[in-house]
């Protein structure tokens, strides 16, 4: 710690005069170390310190997941992307069922372990491109970019089942089983909606999942899923000879008809 104080550094100390004690103690506590070969007080050292602070301010202290701040900037970016690219994106909100009971029965330390365990489970369930965040006490949010509506229910169900199947070891050798309720909504593609409205729709579904008995998933499905495979088959029947000037492979999109 003493070696890292800028006032103790010699030479071109860009950090002279800055009060960094509080920042450094925060970073040290979070396990931050000075990169090798970087002189304390130098610009690279300051950059590393700032990077460390940014990382720290985007993480949830208890679970290591993205925190609410990080979630909010990620969802705003996703709304923008969906509007430009038209790709479907799913937002899931997961809430631990009867969490208050865990706290009341087993104490807050056990409650923390449960939250950490569910957090790890959610992180294990998703793809690297998905973002998992802890957005409230026992509430988590998952942003799934490029998630086709047909897969939404499957993804949400898989997460719910994984959480339910995982026993949480709490202090005293006890095992707890917890469940989550999940609500989800798709961002309207090609539309620049707002993060607040998207979250609100997912939240309404979470409320539905809770009121229908918990440990279940409810999704707000976009109306575009109303076209069945049978309808598509008939739609493209007779049109399978696609235009030769179109790039090859476009014909693959058309289901082969069996008629």
């Amino acid at each position, binding site marked *: 710690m003493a070696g890292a104080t800028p006032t103790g550094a010699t030479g071109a100390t860009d950090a002279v005069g800055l009060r960094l004690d509080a920042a450094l103690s925060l970073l040290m506590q979070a396990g931050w170390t000075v990169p090798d070969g970087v002189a304390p007080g130098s610009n690279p050292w300051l950059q590393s310190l700032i990077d460390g602070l940014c990382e720290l301010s985007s993480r949830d202290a208890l679970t290591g997941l993205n925190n609410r701040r990080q979630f909010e900037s990620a969802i705003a970016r996703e709304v923008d992307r969906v*509007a*430009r690219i*038209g790709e479907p994106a799913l937002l899931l909100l997961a809430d631990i069922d009867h969490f208050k009971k865990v706290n009341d029965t087993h104490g807050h330390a056990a409650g923390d372990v449960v939250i950490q365990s569910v957090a790890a489970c959610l992180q294990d369930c998703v793809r690297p491109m998905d973002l998992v965040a802890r957005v409230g006490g026992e509430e988590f949010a998952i942003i799934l970019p490029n998630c086709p509506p047909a897969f939404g229910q499957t993804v949400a169900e898989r997460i719910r089942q994984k959480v339910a199947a995982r026993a949480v070891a709490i202090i005293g050798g006890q095992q707890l089983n917890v469940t989550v309720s999940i609500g989800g909504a798709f961002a*309207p*593609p*090609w*539309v*620049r*909606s*707002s993060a607040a*409205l998207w979250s609100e729709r997912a939240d309404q579904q979470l409320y539905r999942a809770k009121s229908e008995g918990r440990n279940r998933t409810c999704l707000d499905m*976009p*109306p*575009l899923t*109303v*076209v*069945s495979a049978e*309808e*598509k088959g*008939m*739609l*493209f*029947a*007779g*049109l399978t000879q*696609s*235009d030769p*000037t*179109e790039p090859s492979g*476009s014909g693959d*999109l*058309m289901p082969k008809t069996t008629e």
Partner: protein
Amino acid sequence: MMELMTAPASPVPSSPPRLARTVAITSGKGGVGKTFFSANLAAALTRQGLKVLVLDADLGLANLDVVLNLYPKITLHDVFTGKAELEEAILPAPGGFSVLLAGSGLVEYSRLTPEVRDQLSRIFEAVKPRFDVILIDTGAGISDVVLYAVSMAHEVIVVATPEPTSMTDAYATIKVLAAQQSRENLHLVVNQVSRAGDGRAICNQLQQVVERFVQNPNGTVPKLYFLGEIAQDQSVRDAVQRRQLLMELHPGSAAAQGVVQVATRLQARG
């Protein structure tokens, strides 16, 4: 423009104002050239002697301004927020028609609140007596704003391309419009056609699937009227890139002739 701005109650009541024919243009899928088509159809109808307004109801992701290369200071957004009068937002467009642009400040209106509904409907009623035709350029997708914008119009043109995803979305749109708005007649325009005749084939195909799977709540089956196809040619790319109307830049092109035919057929069905 100026006549519109000064419209005091006329002292001598003449015959009741004739209301515009209202046509919503929608597509389901984005990127099918819907806005490009709307602007050029407006230009074609204007050349046929009609007074046309294009209402940009693509509140989510408006781009009529981009197509027309118009960057007005006053948009629908200002009218919604009370910063400007409706008359100030009605602008002359290059093709001789008028436009009412959404403006990109309408982010918060991309979902339908009662307030947006009232605002849209108020504006719509106010412009109806002043034009022969009002084209409503809706957003992509089948969001509630799009459905509401379509519901304001008497007639609907669905724009599709021969691409399977576009056909599927056009079909989904027709299905939703039948279920929610009991639409019995819909117009179809096929854009980006690379082989003459494909447009009608696609319309027939859609009609067959509609007859098999789609029904209005009252039991009738929606009927698709083929308005025409627009060729995918270099002139379109050129006009888009130069941000000019195809009808002005390349009026003799196959694509422009396609738009003229659509305008003629639309008038014949009026």
